[in-house]
């Protein structure tokens, strides 16, 4: 322990690839400055966002208008909730692909429980006001089932939720016969379409939930335990954290958040189609991961995930405003994600996992 000054540096070679082959620029990237910056790791996308805002304002004067930015936020709010859910699950060291199916299936089933047979429902005659709580319950139950399979049978979260992605969507298709549902209760449409204090309710709700998520993961024991579990489940267990219980809870919350995303999306679109949510999961992972949430668990923040969502939303908005031809849009879009990734890697200064 003699040379204390020198001892700051990590002893465990975190980036063996770089150090062992000793080649080129990689070691430089992985180098020290990352350490001091580590507190701002969740903000590595901020430069990207700034660039996008500048580029956007040059591309179209409409871009920076409050109306347009509000639209961006509203359009992203449902996706953002799923990203929030996935971020929680990823931080706890698990995985959930089935969230995208819940976005469509939970609202559909909840609505079918309350509407008449003629409108495509089961005709149970439940009060329409129950649709929203039922939807959340359905989402939570699917999450619980995922968690149960993973914990009880010690199955891989990736595979279980991959299968559940198909099963849950299959249930949606089967129950609705692939048809869209239109006869939605007023109460069910409300959250996704109302405007509160001049902003869409969806933005408020998403904003509040992100704030809650940040507070919980930043300042509450239960939230911090996700990091402990994702970082080293055995250690978390030894520290007295009820790992199984917390993991199950995270899946339940994740399912409920995805269901809420479904409610917002339904209110925004005015009906529930059989495709609602399909294909979201790629964007969800892209947002979470460029936002700094690690696929290996235990790392990342809710704020970071939010910046990921914003980047994705702004890119989409700019591409639309610019009128990029449809056939080239995907390429530009993917390219920008790739670049955002590299920027967040360079500014973040750490190898990703």
């Amino acid at each position, binding site marked *: *322990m003699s040379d204390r000054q020198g*001892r700051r540096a*990590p002893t465990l070679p975190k980036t063996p690839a770089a150090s062992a082959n000793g080649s080129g620029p990689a070691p430089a990237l992985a180098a020290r400055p990352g350490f001091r910056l580590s507190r701002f790791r969740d903000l590595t996308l901020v430069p990207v966002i700034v660039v996008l805002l500048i580029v956007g304002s040059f591309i179209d004067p409409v871009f920076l208008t409050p109306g347009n930015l509000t639209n961006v936020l509203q359009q992203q709010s449902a996706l953002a909730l799923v990203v929030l859910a996935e971020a929680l699950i990823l931080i706890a060291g698990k995985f959930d692909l089935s969230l995208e199916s819940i976005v469509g299936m939970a609202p559909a089933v909840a609505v079918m429980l309350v509407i008449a047979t003629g409108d495509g429902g089961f005709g149970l005659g439940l009060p329409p006001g129950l649709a929203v709580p039922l939807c959340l319950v359905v989402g939570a139950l699917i999450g619980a089932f995922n968690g149960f399979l993973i914990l009880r049978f010690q199955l891989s979260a990736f595979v279980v939720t991959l299968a559940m992605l198909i099963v849950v969507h299959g249930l949606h298709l089967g129950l609705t016969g692939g048809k869209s549902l239109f006869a939605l209760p007023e109460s069910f449409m409300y959250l996704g379409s109302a405007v509160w204090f001049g902003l869409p309710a969806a933005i408020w709700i998403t904003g509040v939930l992100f704030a809650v998520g940040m507070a919980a993961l930043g300042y509450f024991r239960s939230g911090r335990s996700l990091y402990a579990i994702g*970082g080293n489940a055995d250690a978390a267990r*030894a520290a007295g954290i009820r790992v199984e219980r917390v993991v199950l809870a995270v899946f339940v919350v994740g399912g409920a958040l995805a269901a809420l995303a479904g409610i917002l999306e339904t209110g925004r679109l005015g009906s529930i189609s059989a495709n609602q949510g399909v294909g979201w999961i790629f964007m969800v992972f892209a947002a979470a991961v460029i936002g700094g949430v690690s696929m290996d668990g235990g790392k990342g923040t809710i704020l970071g995930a939010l910046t990921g969502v914003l980047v994705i939303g702004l890119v989409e908005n700019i591409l639309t405003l610019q009128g990029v031809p449809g056939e080239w849009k995907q390429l530009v879009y993917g390219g920008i994600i790739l670049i955002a990734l590299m920027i967040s890697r360079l500014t973040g200064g750490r190898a990703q996992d």
Partner: protein
Amino acid sequence: MSTSSNAAAVEARGITKRFGPTVALNDAGLTIKQGETHALIGRNGAGKSTLVSILTGLQRPDAGEVRFAGEAAPPLADRDAWKARVACVYQKSTIIPALTVAENLFINRQTEGKVINWRAMRARAAALLDQYHVDVDPSGLAGDLGVEQRQLVEIARALSFGARFIILDEPTAQLDGPAIGRLFDRMRDLREQGVTMMFISHHLEEVYEVCQSVTVFRDARHIVTSTVADLPHDALVAAMTGEHAVTYEAKARTIDAKAKVVLEVRGLNSAGRYHDIDLTVKAGEIVGLAGSGSSGKVGLAESIVGLRRADSGVITINGKRPKPGDVPSALAAGVGFVPQDRHHEGFVPLLSVGENATMPIAGKLGRFGMISPERRRARARTMIQELDIKTEGPDQPVGDLSGGNAQKVVMARALVDDPAALVVINPTAGVDVKAKQSLLGSVEDAAQRGAGAVLVSDELDDLRICDRVLVMFHGRVIKDVPRGWSDNDLVAAMEGVSHE
């Protein structure tokens, strides 16, 4: 102090624990009196850590019962009750790398209230670290700490619970001399305050240093419990191994002055690690590298074998100059090595003993890039025999072996290609007495066969087989000590004291 001074602080009776067909504990138990520091000793796989996990409520015994101060142990689910009774430094690291040191210290008890006050927690952490003389930044990431610092953080955390019973499972395996000394001071303080401790270590002399009584486990059973005074070193080893102890005798060797130089290092530098290192190892010679924490010895050894790249300087192995920082070319030049951390760089747990041991010679086990499983098995069998590896056979995954045997597989890997230059780093970390002897013996055998060896270690016992020991301090070789040193001299040199 003691409410019921007659009741033992901890009592485990008739504990049996099975993992499938493995019986980790077989009707074993121990009793620790109030306020004593009790050693638990046994060979690798004797069941010590399993008992620890039972005593800390992480696992439920299949049979038997645990009592704390005469009361039955709380139910497994009641973690808080367990934590109030016992604190522990586990053998496996429980540090969470992505969290700060402060949070690791107060994990799951970041705050008494509802909302975490980070500043207050950092302050508490700083105070705690200070109290135990651990010099780390509480707001740094735990993942950035060295092995030793992590260990110190774990110890500080365990001590901070204020529990009256503390278990330390091989806390000294990763520490160097002064750090161990400080830990022992701390343990003596705690004992004076009436804290009961259970201490596990493979370093028997430590037992005599801090413990009052000792229990020996062997083959999952309780063998003997006694005061340390009544169980001298030889008897202790005999109890552990079931045979009469033979203290390891370093073999006498004479090195031919004209023997060829197999490893030569000239002017090697690595900024912040070591400076201007010159080193010559002849065939048949074993050169020790010693030095306290951060002396640069490990970094130097890792540079020689190509795991790291030195900033400047020349390494010559067997007449060849391998590409710096390139393991394959170092291996091709004739290096064999045992890395510092077997779990990290030593073996692939899912692959078999045979495959791990023969990995560097995979190209020589068949033609056209093919590997003949038969030849691999045959080669592995000879290695298993030579190193006396206890395994079902060459096809057993290394992950299923006990620590000492896994380490022997790593040694086998180092020796498999008949290296001209053998570099071994801390080869005996966490292995029991017998395994230690056979590991050191294999280094000597290799030297006998004409290899030159560099042995990096903090353990004086290990260094005894060396023909000379180079002592490093702050990245420089400050002393070249020939065979026949006394412990005191070497330790003093390592601490830089004799460096007038």
